[in-house]
């Protein structure tokens, strides 16, 4: 049962409910960072890394500090009942993600400087990448499409973070490949660049809608 659920989470996160093309999260890097295949791959890998780590840390944070059912904060109150701090989740998650991105930025600058320069402004932009915040929140909200209504388990959260990142990488790479080809095509002057990329992104989203009929 558990293996089946994990398999479902992977398939749903990558194809059926892809973060970019079905949930429409993380569209800024999808258009901004898909001009070159090499930087698209770098960006995708960075996002996978951030999403997995963010899933792990935000899950722990939420479970043990914010969620009254499992919180360890009981000693803070007189009656031993932990306070309900779930309303803090957005700001707390943003805090975690921002720190993580800062950390990765430092790490890349030291260890992989070419990738650091290739990602440029988009690396700090992962901070506000809604796909990362999205996966953290979705881990808490559950996965109703496959019948998981409550909070996901720790392992399931990690899997969703990883698979979501892989889906993001895949779409980014597909888009970059198409846009590299598109550079050589004859298109009207007014449609060159971003406008035709928007249309193509829309067509890709329609194509991915085909996966929603997939029954596993």
């Amino acid at each position, binding site marked *: 049962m558990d293996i089946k659920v994990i398999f479902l989470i992977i398939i749903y996160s990558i194809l059926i409910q892809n973060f970019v093309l079905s949930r429409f999260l993380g569209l800024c890097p999808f258009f901004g960072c898909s001009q070159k295949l090499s930087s698209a791959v770098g960006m995708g890998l960075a996002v996978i890394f951030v999403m997995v780590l963010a899933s792990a840390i935000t899950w722990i944070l939420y479970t043990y500090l914010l969620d009254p059912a499992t919180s360890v904060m009981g000693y803070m109150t007189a009656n031993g009942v932990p306070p309900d701090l779930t309303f803090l989740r957005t700001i*707390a998650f943003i805090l975690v993600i921002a720190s993580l991105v800062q*950390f990765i930025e430092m790490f890349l600058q*030291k260890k992989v400087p070419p990738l650091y320069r290739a990602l440029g402004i988009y690396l700090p932009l992962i901070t506000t990448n809604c796909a990362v915040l999205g996966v953290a929140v979705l881990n808490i909200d559950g996965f109703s499409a496959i019948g998981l209504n409550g909070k996901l388990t720790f392992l399931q959260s990690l899997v969703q973070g990883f698979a979501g990142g892989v889906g993001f990488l895949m779409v980014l790479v597909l888009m970059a490949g198409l846009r590299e080809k598109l550079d050589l*095509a*004859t298109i009207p002057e007014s449609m060159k660049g971003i406008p035709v990329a928007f249309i193509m992104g829309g067509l890709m989203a329609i194509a991915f809608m085909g996966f929603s009929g997939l029954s596993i």
Partner: protein
Amino acid sequence: MITVVSSVIILGVIGIFFGACLAYASKIFYVQLDPRVEKIAESLPGANCGACGAAGCFSYAEGVVEGAFPANGCIPGGKDVATIIGGIMGCAVEELTPMKAVVNCKGGKKEARQKFEYMGVQDCKAAMLLAGGNKACEYGCLGFGNCVNVCQFQAITMGENGLPIVYPELCTGCGLCVKACPRGVISLIPQSQKIYVGCVNPEKGKAVKAVCEVGCLACGICANKNNNPSGDIVMEGGLPKISYQDNLRILPGATKCPTGTYVIDVTYPPVTYNQEKCNGCEGKPKPLCVKICPAKGCLTFDAERKKAVYDSSLCVGCELCISECPVVAFK
């Protein structure tokens, strides 16, 4: 109340914890960066054109600090950037001759014959893969604008005639277009040069005439002694080769070209002629000035009056007649 207090405490603790982690990480991952590298990188154009030999502007900046690249290595940046880098590095900088890209092909849609109509990918390299391109001339510009796309400085546009137009004032001489052109029709020449050969076809006479109206026939008229006393033009491999020094010295030869292959991007004021002084070069069949003048119809000989007749509207301003006239009738 308890909610407010506990949320403040928890968020504060989380913030302090991550702040401490980041502070520690910044110690571990501290990158020692020479401040000069950043300063130099900021002063560079940032086009990552690679004309300096480095992979990009940043690696060039690193190379300058390490001593691997000269301070005047940035060709697009030119004199200004070289002076700034020299100031940062504290060394004197030699001046480089500013260069510009020119298109050595005049055979546009009108002048050059097409072999077939090409309807594939609009890219010079792709077009060249199909039977060597759609132009009958195996050497000329294909006109799909690889150079236009590669230029980082918007210095090239595609003209209506299917030939790229380079704006010298925007061109930095980085040479990206030279590398991008599969035909090799673009070359770099000094900015001051206004006359260059508009053909790269090394074949001769009939073979060139059959494919292009303005191609170089390798007739050698521009390089012969009368039109080219300075010897700046030399015929080499079926094409004239110019040693760029002075536009004026190339002008007579370039004007004489029967097919108009030369691109002459400069005008000189016409000479002034005092006909009263002219004695028609007595004892000679033709006045010396008429013989030497490269512009057709500019100087003609009036045999009845024994005087040279001058039409200033046709003068190219090459001043050959001034040096040739024995009675100093030209100024």
